[in-house]
């Protein structure tokens, strides 16, 4: 036997032994940079102190009024559509359709309202800088609820249950000014939506274990999910935009999703959204903002309108993302896997980026797509049954 053969005879059993003793699902390790990036996605939920632009924010009576309004169909022109028709609690506050369906079909996918209190822009185009203004939009949109300010005020004034809740929430009867009633209705709706926050997830358990150096708990996180997480914060650079505890930076990006909504009709996203924001009487620079200091209006005062905003849409948060299909602003990705595959095969020529270098096809292997999906699945909390409040105002119901 030659020396090489003798070495091989000894080495092969050792290698076989090593291979057999290593678990098939061994966790890949995180380096220091990856660890820091992972920790930045928590803790969950982050502290929240209310919305200074909304005097109804965090007021239990306003929350109760908002909840009544949210599930009531009387705020629609035909009396059949409520906010909850599109934001269904059992569907993680979405509707499962590619595009929202109210009085007719809208142009965009229905985003979840879960965790909306952490946003600083609202809607796929960020046309609103506060949650109460965003809540007015579907009420007045002819394709969604089709109301007018006088019609909303009339419903509130003439429905004893609503006018009672209004008095309890705002300390006065609905005023004669129709627009003031509309804005207060929206502020109560916002106060309710602020209470919808997703629960802690398997990812949070992993992240918190990492933070306290609990190796045993860290090891319980599935290996495919950890490989996906490493991609998410590493080569794929997902966490650059899907940043922070809510997995969104709250801003906008062009990721090459089509923006034609019909023959000759374009959805320009953020570009038109900034124009609408500036024109809105309900923006935070206007008279309806309850924050006298106007500190809440900093973003509105300084936001710029650029050519590159054309085709940009809001970066959605990813908590409970596995429960909110279909995806993208137009619902064009039916599954989570389709959404991940989009980034793998993205066409840079479709991106209005003015030379921006961030969006490039990731060219992921099938196994890497599986891993990213496995990671995204760990961002879902166990199903929570939403139970409507019985009432905090028995005199009103």
């Amino acid at each position, binding site marked *: 036997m030659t020396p090489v053969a003798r070495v091989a005879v000894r080495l092969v059993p050792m290698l076989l032994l090593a291979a057999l003793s290593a678990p098939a699902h061994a966790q890949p390790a995180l380096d220091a940079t990856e660890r*820091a*990036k992972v920790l*930045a996605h928590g803790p969950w939920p982050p502290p929240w102190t209310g919305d200074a632009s909304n005097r109804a924010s965090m007021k239990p009576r306003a929350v109760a009024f908002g909840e009544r309004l949210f599930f009531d169909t009387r705020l629609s022109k035909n009396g059949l559509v409520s906010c909850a028709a599109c934001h269904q609690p059992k569907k993680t506050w979405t509707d499962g359709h590619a595009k929202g369906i109210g009085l007719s079909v809208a142009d965009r996918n229905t985003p979840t309202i879960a965790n909306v209190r952490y946003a*600083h822009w609202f809607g796929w185009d960020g046309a609103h800088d506060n949650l109460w203004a965003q809540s007015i939009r579907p009420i007045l949109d002819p394709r969604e609820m089709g109301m007018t300010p006088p019609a909303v005020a009339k419903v509130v004034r003439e429905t004893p249950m609503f006018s009672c809740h209004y008095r309890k929430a705002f300390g006065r009867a609905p005023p004669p000014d129709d627009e003031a009633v509309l804005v207060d209705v929206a502020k109560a709706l916002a106060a309710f939506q602020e209470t919808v926050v997703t629960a802690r997830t398997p990812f949070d358990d992993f992240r918190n274990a990492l933070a306290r150096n609990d190796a045993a708990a860290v090891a319980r996180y599935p290996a495919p999910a950890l490989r996906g997480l490493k991609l998410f914060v590493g080569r794929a650079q997902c*966490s*650059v*935009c899907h*940043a*922070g505890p809510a997995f969104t*930076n*709250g*801003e*906008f990006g062009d990721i090459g999703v089509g923006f034609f909504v019909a023959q000759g009709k374009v959805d320009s996203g953020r570009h038109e959204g900034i124009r609408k924001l500036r024109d809105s009487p309900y923006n935070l620079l206007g008279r309806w903002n309850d924050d006298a200091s106007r500190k809440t209006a*900093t*973003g509105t*005062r*300084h*936001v*710029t309108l650029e050519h*590159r905003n054309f085709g940009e849409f809001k970066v959605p948060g990813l908590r409970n993302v596995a429960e909110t299909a279909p995806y993208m602003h137009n619902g064009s990705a039916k599954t989570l896997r389709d959404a991940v595959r989009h980034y793998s095969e993205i066409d840079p020529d479709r991106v209005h*980026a*003015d*030379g*921006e*270098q*961030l969006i490039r096809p990731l060219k992921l292997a099938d196994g890497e797509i599986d891993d990213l999906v496995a990671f995204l699945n760990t961002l879902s909390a166990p199903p929570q049954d939403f139970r409507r409040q019985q009432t905090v105002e028995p005199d009103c119901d």
Partner: protein
Amino acid sequence: MNTAPFAPDRVRRATAPPRAGTQAGRMARRALAAAALVPLLAQASADAPRCGDALGTGVARGESKRYVVAWRADPSPIVVSRHFALDVVVCAKAGAAPAMSLRVDATMPAHRHGMNYRPTIAATGDGRFRAEGLLFHMPGAWEFAFDVTGNDGTERVRAPYELQ
């Protein structure tokens, strides 16, 4: 300013008195004087006010040919997707005209994009400015650009900033 004023009085007091003697003695005295001078100069430099010291702790600085720019973020540290302001002090180097106005911007050079917001700048006197309305919407490598204008033109001071 970064350039510390020379402190001749303090150096003279600290230097050993001259003593008659040999060539070696004279060389030793010179070496002793030089050795004493180095830490004292360093001390004088450390004690001298630097541009932007009045801003307190957490001050960062950058400079160009004619200007030193010192700034402090408010609130500090900067957080992804949260608005911040900058308190800025501009110091003209020797021979340069004082800063009359300032523009502030920031970009991510690797991504080739800037901020989604345009800050407003208010002069608060004595080369001090406050920039309001900045927001870094991504973690990573940013670069501030301070355009300082004096009566002899505009000069850009660039300064990197790594946002975790």
